[in-house]
């Protein structure tokens, strides 16, 4: 699946959810085996055009996420590649045990797509935010957890997921106007981090929406004579250990940045790995605090919790005592 900067900018205007729907529509043109499920959030998942174009491949299961994952398991058992979407907490928490039994234990070919993860549900509040989902999903054996950095990466993730015959949790952060990280095509592989910027002074490892903000932060750091590398760790599990080894060997402070609780997500995954490596650099986890957060506009919330580029740069500078 190749992308262009022009396409990516168009998808960015649609936002992450509509891009997911668009990706599914494109995937259906080349893959006859997909089945797409929704728990009464088909339109919110950008699937309205897909529903019209492929009515036989779309199932609205009603407002019943547990049943959705169970039905997905039956369809997957019979050979379908199943994409099932809902808001992050409704899949990762309400249907957590169905996910564990059907996707984890039985290793079935189901892609659970968490729309509106992180803070992007804005005024819908904590009931709809996805702040713990990566932590929960990461702890389930057989599960792969991917958090795309921009809309092009959402498309690439959907296409790669269809070729990967195991369960996957696809975590969509970002909203309408999801900033563009990739202006050109690039190689995307599940489990393989993408080096976005090189730099010898600090190492930033980011995932999802925070990849773009990290690039902004790196530019500001450069103005302050700090060269920061930025690694897009789109796959939180399994984490790319060889990419982490390169970062560790650099011997410079590591900063992980994620639109997720600092408990259990990317930062924890990185810290778990580095903790077993002698003389590994410190890992500074930047993310959301272990608390129910305030409610507001998406951008306001990112700023409130220090997750926009200039704030990330300030945090890093402060940490370096600069």
């Amino acid at each position, binding site marked *: 699946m190749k992308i262009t900067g022009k396409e990516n900018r168009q998808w960015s205007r649609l936002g992450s959810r509509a891009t997911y729907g668009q990706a599914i529509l494109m995937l259906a043109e080349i893959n006859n085996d997909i089945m797409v499920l929704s728990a009464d959030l088909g339109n919110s998942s950008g699937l309205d055009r897909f529903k019209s174009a492929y009515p036989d491949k779309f199932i609205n299961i009603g407002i019943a996420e547990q049943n959705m994952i169970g039905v997905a*398991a039956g369809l997957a058992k019979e050979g379908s590649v199943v994409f099932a979407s809902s808001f992050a907490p409704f899949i990762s928490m309400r249907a957590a045990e169905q996910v564990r039994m059907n996707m984890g234990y039985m290793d079935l070919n189901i892609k659970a797509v968490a729309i509106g993860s992180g803070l992007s549900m804005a005024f819908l509040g904590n009931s709809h935010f996805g702040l713990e989902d990566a932590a929960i999903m990461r702890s389930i054996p057989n599960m792969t957890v991917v958090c795309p950095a921009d809309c092009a990466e959402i498309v690439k993730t959907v296409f790669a997921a269809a070729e990967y015959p195991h369960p996957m949790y696809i975590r969509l952060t970002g909203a309408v106007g999801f900033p563009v990280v990739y202006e050109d095509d690039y190689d995307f592989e599940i489990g393989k981090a993408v080096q976005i910027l090189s730099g010898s002074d600090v190492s930033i490892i980011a995932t999802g929406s925070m990849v773009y903000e990290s690039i902004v932060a790196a530019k500001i750091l450069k103005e302050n004579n700090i060269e920061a590398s930025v690694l897009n760790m789109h796959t939180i599990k399994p984490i790319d250990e060889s990419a982490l080894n390169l970062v560790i060997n650099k011997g410079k402070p590591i900063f992980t940045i994620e639109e997720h609780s600092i408990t259990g997500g990317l930062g924890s995954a990185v810290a778990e790995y580095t903790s077993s490596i002698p003389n590994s650099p410190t890992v500074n986890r930047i993310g959301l605090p272990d608390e129910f957060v305030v409610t507001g506009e998406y951008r306001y919330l990112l700023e409130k919790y220090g997750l926009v580029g200039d704030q990330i740069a300030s945090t890093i500078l402060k940490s370096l005592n600069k």
Partner: protein
Amino acid sequence: MNTNELLLLAKKSRIKILDLAFKSDGPSHLGGGLSMVEIFSVLYGKILKYNIESPEWKDRDRFILSKGHGVLPFFVALHYAGFISEDELYTYKKNESDLISHPVMNMRLGMESSNGSLGHGLSMGVGIALSLKKKSNLNSRVFVVLGDGECNEGSVWEAVMSAAHFKLNNLVAIVDFNKLQSDGNSETIMDLGNLEKKWESFGWEVCSLNGHDIEALVDVLSSLNLTDRPKVIIAHTVKGKGVSFMENNNTWHHNRLTLTTFDQAIEELNNS
């Protein structure tokens, strides 16, 4: 198999269940296992289409034991059907065996799914039944066995609702209605009311019968797919059926046989 053969299969299955439980040297879910012996005998002796040489044969019927703790009659049925050898059967509850206290998906052994947590199996059955319809496989049917206690789980009713909505007349649920659950009397713990009317009001075709009546089970299971609705068989059963001191005695929900109780139970069954 004819009725007499099915009766004999049920009798030898009960003896095998007790032998297996006794030799496993630990507690087993005996009560809710013994209540399903006729159901399993009829399913595997007469109704289900399967091929032990080709366990993934696409025209096979799919079977899911949603009340996953009821493995004893399931494993014994798979044994007499030819999926599980005598030697492998007696690995039941040995360290790292494929045969534990709940089904673990294993097509070689004839097990379509992993279960154990209640309220999951019917949803998967709905998904399989939907898939069969979409692929125009009109030969295979889906059978799911649930417990009455299991029907406390909300997810059961999500699945029940969806099966009727999708008009899955290739799906058959059988509820082992033995009126007891882990902590005791089901009516006292969480009254299911009129279970037949509940399923009917959700849009299912309902059949109520004595779950130990082999002829009644054969009659109903031999005449499926007559409407556009999924079908549920509410099988009224006796927990611990066949062993006098276990019948309706919930201390045998999950319990261990001693040599004395084992000998007594086997003697009763041999004389029955």
